[in-house]
Structure formats: structure tokens, C-alpha cells
């Protein structure tokens, strides 16, 4: 049986004005378990807290009920008071007789009556309270960043800057991501490589950062502060520690006709290759699907020309398991495939290209050395048509397009149009748009410059059909403002393809038990207030894996995610919320219903041996709650049929007791 002390606060006249506090403390003195009851002007004041402390000592109290303002106001205060007097802070309950009683009821009689009932409910609950201790878990002071694009790079640099070691896992042979493929960046038109490659070098040279390129995450176990991650280092058949990146092998390899992914297949590379000149790490990689030596053992040229002796045809995939305290997802985006959009003839004509392909065509390091030439015949195009929203804002068929706005296309299309007109004033450039969306610093000014200074033809309307005829592309479109149908003979058509999350994101989300929306973008812990955290504790989001973003937004989010990671890694111990779910293993049936509703993946199952009354043992599947991950919502307790799962601090019997006390 508890020894409960009841402390009724006047809160000046805030409570005492409507509630007869004397009557309340008198009535509650008669409740079961109550050994002391009093009232005082300001319970939260030093003098008020001293009354509580003295009563705890004098009456050997084990439970405290404070009838005062909202627990959201002073629950923490009174818990501290109790703790300083030597009783567990979770043995304190608050009856809210101010916000939910004296302030909303005018009549003293009803106010007093209700205050007594609320006090009774709190006493009934405290009678069943148990001391709770928050769990402490140590934190591994190392972070993992998944994805080595600009988002991952910035996050890693910021975390390393604070002194914590960081590993980057990148599935491609080099970090750099999509930004490395871009030519210029809006709205300032500085060259992407000029601002990105120094950061890539910083990453490579930072001794706190390790890069696992050409690697993937295959398994994630553990929880916030204590993740165990298995990383697969795919065999690249070239020893990273020895290769100097001289490139001799890539010039001598006889396999020349392999489409070059970096230039989106618009030129070719060898079977041993370095993706681009500023790659980090700058080491060669052998493409096992095309290498003669690996396929049939007949070649070995690269091994012969490599003076460093870095080639190793017998390399195998390596798996390593590392411990991390925090994980940042920065898996980025891809343009959606265009082959389903027959109306734009993307599959029929080489001269219908995506915007990312256009970036490579304009880039000095691209397949054409920066000259804008038609992919089909290498001629200089005179009439260019840009089509916006291809696959974006597309509700009609999910397998074709995406319902959301891809956000970056309006700006990069303006950039492309402007650059084309700037370099080649002899061209006519048409942009077909539905809306031009330019919220952002200097964005609208940029778009207007394309129209006003560079004379780009912006036409409100959509292209209905592109049909190749001879060496021209017949473009049929509507001009909604002039209410006419337009026919243009174009030389080059550029499609602003919608962007979608990288395909690796979905399996990764499953491994991390992080939630995703229907479009496979990661969801935030809170859409407004916790935009860079995932609902899974210890997992953070950076860049376009969370939603379409341009570079400045990505960098900002990367920094924000890094600061959250640093905040976590700074701690030596994580103090949990003690009000967590707790299964009674003797009653658990192992049905998995609780696991299904847990938003945090805090529940797992183990096969456990139980001793039966007849001294035999029986193996049963029972639920286990990871207290470091559980946030205490209690959803599992209702999903549990047998009532095996309960929530500490809000136990079934406590809530029943409150209901009973109120309905008595």
C-alpha cells in the first residue's frame, strides 16, 4: 500500500477563487492510501516545495498527488522536488484543477466537486504507480552517411568538422552524385564542378572521414546510438590502396564500346574505367560484365600496363560490420525513365533528350566537349524545344509519371534556355510550360532574364506530340494564351523529366525501419518541426531522399542533419523515456500484432525457453521491447489481445483505476 500525500494549490486566487481548496484537501484525506493532505497558496514556490519535502520526510510518503495547474506546466518541477526528497520522480501525479477546472467553471460548488473527483482519479492512479528509472544507453561516437552526393558530402564534412568520425557509403565508384554531372548551377551560373570538386577533395583529405565507394549497406541492426551496419564492398578488381589513378589502364583496355554512364550513354568508356577526371577516390574500377579477363580469362592488358601492380582479378566482395551512433540517409534522386512517354518520341529519336543529358551536352568535359551538337548527326541545332513537367504533376497513371511537382525543373530549364541563347545567339529556343514556379532567392529574376534579356520564347501550354520526320522533329503543342495550336520544326527536344527517389531507398528504409511515403520519399519525424529526422530515432535525412530539392536547399538540410547528428553524438549516454511499453512474457502469444503497429520498430521477437509448472521447458516466441527506441505511445498495448503488452506509467490497471475513480 502506498503512503500518499495530497497537496492542493491555491495558485493565489486562480484556483482558490472558484474551488474550495480546504474542502478538496479535506475530502481527499479520506481516500484510500492518503496519509497526509494539505493546501497552500503557491505549491510551486520554494516554500510550497518545502512543504512537500518536509511531508515526505515526516510521513514517509511513497506517492505524491499535487492538485494544481496543468502537468504540462509544473509536472517536471514537482518531480524534481520529489526526487530531491528521495522518492522516485515518477511517483508524482498531478490533478489539473486549474486549466481544466477552476478556469473553465464559474460555480464554486461544481468546481469543488470536480476538483475532488480529479484528485480522486490521481490518487487512484498513484496507488498503482511504480518507481520508474529511465534507461541509459551508451552512444557510439561515429556516424554513417549513406550516399555520397552533395547532401552526403556536406553532412559528412559538417559532422567531421565537429570532431566525430564519419563513414560515407557510396554505391558508385566515386562520390559526387548528380551534382558532378551538372554543367552550371542556377541562379548564379557558377560551374558545378568548380564548387563541388573542392568539397570532394576535402572529404578525401579529411582524416575523420572514410569513404566506402562502390559499396552498399546490406544489413542494419541495433537502435539509436548503437547501430550495427554491414557494408558490402563490391569487388572493383583494383586495389584502392595501390592504384595511383594514372589512367594508363583505361587507355589500353581493348573493350571500348561500353556506354558511359557518367555521360548517360552518349559516349563510351572502357571495361576498366575512372568515371571522370576529378573522381574521388581516383582509382580505376573494372566492370565485370564487360571485362574479357573476368568473363573468359582472355586478356589481362590492364594488369600488364599497371606499373603499380594494382590489378587483382581474384578480388571478392568484402563484407565489414561497423558500429555507428547515428545514420544519415542521403540516397538522392534519379530522373524517371522516359521510355513510357511515347508521345515525346524519346525512344524513337536520339535528338529527344532529357535535361540531364542536356547538361552533359553543354559540359566542357561532356561527350561533345561542351559544343551543343545533335546526338544523331553531330549538327548544330537551330531550333530547340524544352518541355516542362514531363511526368511531374501527373495523376493519371502512376506507372508513368509522378503526382508531385519535381520542383527543380523550372529553374534548370530556364538555365538551359538562357545558356543556349547565350552561347548560340543563332538559335530559337521555345519553352512549353504549365506554370513557371520560381520561389527562391533570385529565382524569378533569373527566369525573367531568360525571357527579357535572352529572348527565350516561353509558351503557356503543353506539347501534345513530337514526331520525327527526316532530320526534324515535328512538335505539336498548344498555346493557351493565344488559343492556337503551334507546329514547330525542331532540331532538338529537351524533356524536363520528373525526378524520383533512388531505387536503393526502399530496401534501405526497410532495413532502417524508417517510414516512407507512397512515392518512396522518406518521411520526416514531424513535417514542420523535425524535418531532417526520420521517425526512427537515430536516423536522419539529408537531401532529395526526403523530397525534391535544389542544391542550396540540399546543402542547408545536410547541415541541419549534421547538427542533429552532432547533438546526438555529443552525449555519452542517452537517457530514455521511462514510460515505455513492456511485455509480460508469460502472457505473450507471439502473434506479431504489436510489432505491426509500432511506428519505431521497437518491438522484436525472440524464441525463449520457459519453465512450465510441471518442470518441463517450452520454447515460445515472445515480444521484446527495445526501451531505447520505444517512445511510449502505447499503440501496441491496444493491438495486444491478451493484454501482455502494457505501458509503464500508463498501465491498463492505472487507467482503469482512473476511470473507476471518475465514475464512482
Amino acid at each position: 500500500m502506498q503512503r500518499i500525500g495530497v497537496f492542493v494549490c491555491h495558485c493565489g486566487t486562480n484556483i482558490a477563487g472558484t474551488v474550495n481548496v480546504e474542502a478538496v484537501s479535506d475530502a481527499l484525506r479520506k481516500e484510500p492510501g492518503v496519509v497526509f493532505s494539505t493546501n497552500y497558496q503557491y505549491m510551486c514556490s520554494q516554500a510550497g516545495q518545502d512543504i512537500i519535502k518536509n511531508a515526505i520526510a515526516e510521513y514517509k510518503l511513497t506517492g505524491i498527488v499535487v492538485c494544481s495547474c496543468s502537468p504540462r506546466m509544473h509536472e517536471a518541477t514537482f518531480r524534481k522536488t520529489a526526487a530531491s526528497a528521495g522518492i522516485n520522480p515518477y511517483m508524482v501525479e498531478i490533478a489539473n484543477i486549474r486549466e481544466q477546472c477552476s478556469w473553465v467553471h464559474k460555480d464554486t460548488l461544481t468546481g469543488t466537486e470536480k476538483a475532488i473527483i480529479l484528485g480522486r482519479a490521481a490518487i487512484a492512479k498513484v496507488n498503482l504507480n511504480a518507481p520508474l528509472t529511465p534507461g541509459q544507453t551508451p552512444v557510439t561516437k561515429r556516424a554513417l552517411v549513406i550516399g555520397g552526393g552533395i547532401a552526403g558530402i556536406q553532412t559528412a564534412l559538417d559532422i567531421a568538422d565537429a570532431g566525430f568520425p564519419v563513414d560515407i557509403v557510396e554505391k558508385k565508384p566515386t562520390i559526387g552524385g548528380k551534382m558532378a554531372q551538372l554543367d552550371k548551377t542556377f541562379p548564379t551560373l557558377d560551374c558545378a564542378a568548380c564548387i563541388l570538386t573542392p568539397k570532394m577533395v576535402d572529404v578525401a583529405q579529411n582524416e575523420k572521414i572514410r569513404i566506402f565507394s562502390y559499396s552498399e549497406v546490406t544489413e542494419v541492426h541495433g537502435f539509436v546510438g548503437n547501430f550495427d551496419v554491414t557494408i558490402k564492398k563490391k569487388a572493383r578488381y583494383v586495389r584502392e590502396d595501390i592504384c595511383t589513378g594514372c589512367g594508363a589502364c583505361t587507355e589500353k583496355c581493348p573493350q571500348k564500346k561500353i556506354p558511359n554512364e557518367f555521360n548517360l550513354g552518349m559516349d563510351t568508356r572502357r571495361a576498366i574505367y575512372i568515371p571522370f577526371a576529378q573522381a574521388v577516390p581516383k582509382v580505376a574500377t573494372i566492370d565485370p560484365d564487360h571485362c574479357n579477363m573476368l568473363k573468359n580469362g582472355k586478356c589481362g592488358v590492364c594488369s600488364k600496363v599497371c606499373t603499380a601492380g594494382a590489378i587483382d582479378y581474384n578480388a571478392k566482395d568484402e563484407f565489414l560490420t561497423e558500429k555507428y551512433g547515428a545514420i544519415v540517409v542521403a540516397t538522392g534522386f534519379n530522373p524517371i525513365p522516359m521510355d513510357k512517354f511515347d508521345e515525346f518520341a524519346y525512344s524513337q529519336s536520339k535528338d529527344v533528350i532529357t535535361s540531364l543529358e542536356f547538361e552533359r551536352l553543354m559540359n566542357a568535359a561532356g561527350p561533345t566537349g561542351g559544343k551543343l551538337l545533335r546526338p544523331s548527326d553531330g549538327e548544330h541545332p537551330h531550333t530547340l524545344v524544352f518541355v516542362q513537367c514531363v511526368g511531374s504533376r501527373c495523376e493519371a497513371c502512376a506507372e508513368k509519371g509522378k503526382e508531385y511537382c519535381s520542383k527543380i525543373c523550372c529553374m534548370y530549364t530556364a538555365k538551359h534556355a538562357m545558356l543556349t541563347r547565350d552561347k548560340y545567339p543563332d538559335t530559337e529556343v521555345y519553352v512549353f510550360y504549365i506554370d513557371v514556379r520560381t520561389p527562391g532567392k533570385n529565382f524569378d529574376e533569373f527566369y525573367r532574364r531568360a525571357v527579357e534579356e535572352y529572348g527565350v520564347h516561353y509558351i503557356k501550354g503543353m506539347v501534345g506530340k513530337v514526331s520525327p520526320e527526316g532530320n526534324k522533329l515535328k512538335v505539336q503543342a498548344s498555346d493557351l494564351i493565344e488559343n492556337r495550336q503551334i507546329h514547330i520544326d525542331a532540331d532538338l527536344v529537351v524533356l524536363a523529366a520528373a525526378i524520383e527517389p533512388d531505387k536503393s531507398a526502399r530496401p534501405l528504409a526497410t532495413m532502417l525501419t524508417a517510414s516512407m511515403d507512397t512515392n518512396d520519399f522518406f518521411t520526416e519525424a514531424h513535417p514542420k518541426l523535425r524535418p531532417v529526422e526520420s521517425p526512427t530515432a537515430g536516423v536522419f535525412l539529408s537531401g532529395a531522399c526526403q523530397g525534391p530539392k535544389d542544391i542550396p536547399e540540399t546543402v542547408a538540410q545536410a547541415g541541419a542533419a549534421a547538427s542533429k547528428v552532432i547533438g546526438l553524438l555529443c552525449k555519452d549516454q542517452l537517457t530514455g523515456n521511462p514510460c515505455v511499453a513492456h511485455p509480460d512474457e508469460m502472457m505473450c502469444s507471439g502473434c506479431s500484432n504489436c510489432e505491426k503497429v509500432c511506428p519505431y520498430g521497437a518491438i522484436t521477437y525472440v524464441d525463449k525457453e520457459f519453465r512450465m509448472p510441471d518442470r518441463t521447458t517450452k520454447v515460445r516466441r515472445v515480444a521484446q521491447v527495445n526501451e531505447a527506441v520505444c517512445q511510449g505511445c502505447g499503440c501496441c498495448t491496444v493491438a495486444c489481445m491478451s493484454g501482455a503488452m502494457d505501458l509503464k506509467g500508463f498501465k491498463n490497471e492505472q487507467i482503469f483505476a482512473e476511470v473507476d475513480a471518475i465514475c464512482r
Partner: protein
Amino acid sequence: MTNTKRMKEDILRMSGVNPRKCMKCGKCSGTCPNYDEMEYHPHQFVSMVEEGRLEPLLASKSLYTCLSCMACIERCPRGVEPAKLIEAVRLLKERQKDGNHLTANDIPARIDDDMPQQAIVTAFRKYTK
């Protein structure tokens, strides 16, 4: 309910189209192969029905110049299906023509062994208000 409002409801019901889904991109009209023959174009049908400007549509030749090729249905990114809407306006117009060309009383006289019943039912629907 005003006449226009009722007509609009009829059109929406017959077509099953929700013109509010339209985001005014004009891809339907960009696609339309008979654009120049049409006084009102597919996207205009959508927005005029939504705005309740039905009189000009009902009077327009466009009702008959639509080829019903369904290209606009195929291409619309929002799934609005303008051709169905045009068809519904056309149906409404047909049903408004003059009085009842065919009444229930006329039917028995027209039935003979060669006449498929389907044809009578169809005719009754087409020629009756």
C-alpha cells in the same frame, strides 16, 4: 436549380468527368489532331463546362468536329478525359433537339420480326428528350 446548373450536372454525370482535376496545361489541345477545325478546343470544353458556359458549346460545330480519337484522354496527365466530356455535351445537345421524335406509343407499330430490339431501345434513347 437553374437550367445551366442542371445541364452541367447532366454532363458531368453522363461523362463521369471531374473538370476540377484539370491543371490547365493544354496537353489535350496540344495533342488534338483536328485542332484547327474546332472552334472550341478540348481544354476549352473542360474549362467552359466547369464555368457553366454551356450555351456557346451547345451551339458550336466543334461538337461534331471532334474525331473521338481519344488522344486527349490518353495524354492528359491528370486523367481528366476531355473527349468524354465533349461526347457528353454532344449527347446533351442531341437530347435537347426539338421535341420527342419517338414516343412509347409509337413503338409497337414499328416492331417487326427483322427489327432488333436493341435498335428500338437505342432509337428510343436517342430520339427522345
